[in-house]
């Protein structure tokens, strides 16, 4: 295989697809399957045969379209007609109307142009449009062209230069410059070098990485191979949560295909470069997403973080230089190589380029997987894309960044999505989760929920995190059962500060964020709980109520 072979496959595949006038994409991702996506897929396959249109209409199994609230979702091309909540019963009617008669069946269409208008799909460029189980589909939309370009026309330094130019920053949360990181690993003297792709999306309420892997696994793999060429690594691991069976299956299949096509292994595309890729499974530990902990876990040990320096770029897996990168970051790489860093800079903000994927969930009209340009405001995400709060309820807060993020009120909804702005208002980018809360949520209870999560997930190594969080929990238990005192609020603040300052890893350093932001923006609710023994959402003090009855 070489560049011309890839071009040939792309041409053949495109010709094959052009023979079909219509293409029906049935979303078969984790969001739509529980609502019967496979049955819908089967029904479409049967219906096009029965109605005799199988020669002009291709039915394909694809990944996530992004609109997880209207599953099973079906996208019909040309024209990107999106059908919502399709059932096997109305499939025949859709095929009869849209394909046979050529008139879209409007009553089943999803009418919500707002959901997509402010989105910008770079990472999710192929999600919902290609069949993730067919490498030909990926190649037909330009897949592996970037890899071929790197190997045939660019030096490793040139690749790193292009990535640096693009201004791409790590999407796993910390936002470190990707080009700079690659340069560090490339310059490290020790060999062999490793790459670890982080797909340990342990934050509750977040599924952006999973959906990417389910919908477009080859984009992640191509990004990894390009990175391996740039830093001269010969072995890589994708560390994935074992709770994601569909994503695991998609990646396993994609890796096998890439190996059989000589895109992985020795002499990739006929060059000297060799790179091998394996999956490693997590086992339910949130802290394993931390960059030194993930290394421990890949080595088959307890995922306990260790102090840095030495940084993984110099001493990572088995003490060798290791590049750790979130999968979303890696999926950006092929685009940057193909179109250039300058092109990429055209998206987002000058100091924060490109886009970010978020899973948008909670009490919101249009939950789903979204991708937005950096610099968009939270208000635009909640109201323009998310469609606001359902059932006439009032907005209360938005949680950005998972259990280590912040709970932000209405007053800061105009904050922009970029690493620094989010930090200023008390949240973090995290791995990309936005959960919207309405007036039925109690902010004290929410902070308590996240504290419980962090206690469960603390690895127990650092005393401030282990014991400090337990102390915080005691106070929350007091407040939620009506035993709270006014100086508890000060103690919460003080202990939070200790935990942040004295913990080794990101988990401890960010665990108090929900506490501090709820104290900063919703202090009156704490006071109400303590002084008036009142929970305006009616969540706390439940036990007392039961006792009264």
């Amino acid at each position, binding site marked *: 295989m070489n560049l011309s072979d890839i071009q040939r496959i792309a041409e053949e595949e495109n010709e094959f697809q052009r023979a079909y006038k219509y293409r029906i994409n049935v979303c078969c991702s*984790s*969001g739509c*399957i*529980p*609502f*019967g996506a496979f049955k819908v897929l089967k029904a479409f396959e049967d219906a096009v045969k029965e109605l005799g249109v199988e020669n002009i209409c291709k039915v394909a199994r694809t990944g996530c379209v992004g609109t*997880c*609230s209207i*599953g099973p979702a079906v996208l019909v091309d040309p024209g990107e007609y999106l059908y919502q909540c399709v059932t096997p019963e109305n499939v025949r009617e859709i095929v009869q109307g849209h394909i046979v008669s050529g008139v879209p069946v409007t009553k089943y269409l999803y009418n919500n142009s707002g959901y997509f208008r402010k989105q910008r799909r770079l990472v999710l460029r192929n999600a919902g449009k290609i069949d993730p189980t067919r490498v030909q589909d990926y190649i037909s939309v330009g897949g592996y062209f970037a890899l071929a370009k790197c190997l045939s026309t660019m030096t490793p330094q040139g690749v790193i230069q292009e990535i640096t130019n693009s201004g791409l920053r790590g999407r796993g949360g910390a936002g470190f410059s990707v080009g700079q990181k690659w340069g560090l690993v490339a310059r490290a003297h020790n060999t062999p070098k490793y790459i670890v792709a982080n797909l340990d*999306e*342990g*934050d*509750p*309420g*977040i*599924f952006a990485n*999973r*959906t990417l892997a389910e919908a477009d696994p080859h984009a992640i793999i191509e990004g990894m191979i390009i990175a391996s060429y740039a830093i001269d690594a010969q072995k890589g691991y994708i560390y994935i949560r*074992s*709770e*994601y069976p569909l994503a695991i299956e998609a990646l396993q299949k994609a890796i096998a295909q890439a190996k059989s096509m000589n895109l992985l292994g020795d002499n990739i595309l006929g060059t000297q470069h060799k790179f091998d890729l394996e999956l*490693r*499974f*997590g*086992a*339910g*530990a*949130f802290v394993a997403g931390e960059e030194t902990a993930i290394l421990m*876990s*890949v*080595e*088959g*040990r*307890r*995922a*306990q973080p260790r102090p840095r320096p030495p940084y993984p770029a110099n001493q990572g897996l088995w003490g060798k230089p290791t590049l750790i990168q979130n999968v979303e970051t890696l999926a950006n790489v092929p685009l940057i190589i193909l179109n250039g860093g300058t092109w990429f800079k055209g998206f987002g903000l000058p100091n924060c380029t490109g886009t970010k994927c978020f*899973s948008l*969930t*909670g*009490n919101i009209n249009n*939950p*789903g*997987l979204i991708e937005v340009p950096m610099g968009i405001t939270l208000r635009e995400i909640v109201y323009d894309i998310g469609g606001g709060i359902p059932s006439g309820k009032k907005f209360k807060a938005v*949680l950005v960044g*998972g*259990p280590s993020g912040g709970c932000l009120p209405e007053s800061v909804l105009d904050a922009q999505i970029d690493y620094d702005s989010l930090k200023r208002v008390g949240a973090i980018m995290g791995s990309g*989760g936005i*959960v919207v*809360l309405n007036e039925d*949520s109690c902010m004290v209870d929410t902070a308590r*929920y996240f504290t419980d*999560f962090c206690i*469960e*997930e603390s*690895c127990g190594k650092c005393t401030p995190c282990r014991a400090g969080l337990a102390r915080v929990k005691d106070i929350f238990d007091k407040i939620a059962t009506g035993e709270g005192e006014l100086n508890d609020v000060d103690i919460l603040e003080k202990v939070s500060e200790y935990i942040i300052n004295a913990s080794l890893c990101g988990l401890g350093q960010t665990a108090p964020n929900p506490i501090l932001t709820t104290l900063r923006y919703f202090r009156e609710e704490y006071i109400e709980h303590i002084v008036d023994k009142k929970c305006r959402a009616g969540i706390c003090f439940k036990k007392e109520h039961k006792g009264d009855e």
Partner: protein
Amino acid sequence: MTTEDIRRAQLERVLKKNNYQKSALLEILHSAQEIYGYLDQNLLVDIAGSLNLPPSHVYGVVTFYSYFKMRKPGQHIVTACLGTACYVKGVKQIIEAIEEEFNLKVGGSTADGKLSLSLTRCIGACAMAPAVVLDDQVIGKATKEIVIERIRNVLAGERDESV
């Protein structure tokens, strides 16, 4: 061959496939749990011996990760998702309803060993929160009525046809 022999042979194949690498411990434990249903102490000692690792190391790893189970689970397993979206949308009430209806506690099983209830930290099905998993089937937009009915059906031995 007894069931035990067959399982041991399966485990041996997994060990061999991973070249008895110490670093593949997590993968091996995953497979072992799939084969045996759970990881009891003797099994851990056995795996430790095969990989030439101290049993304490293997035990430490198993207890660190919440996915690994050291107790025999019930015949059917219902797992409630405790992710943020599910929490916000009231999964707690569903959990309480299951506990009450089937007389068991989170982390435990019913007296007849037919059903066990566990919690998980987010299965990533947040757009259809609250989510409950019943024997590998995800029940999205769950209510306590739906979940209890589905559990009853499964316990009664009916195949779950609703998905």
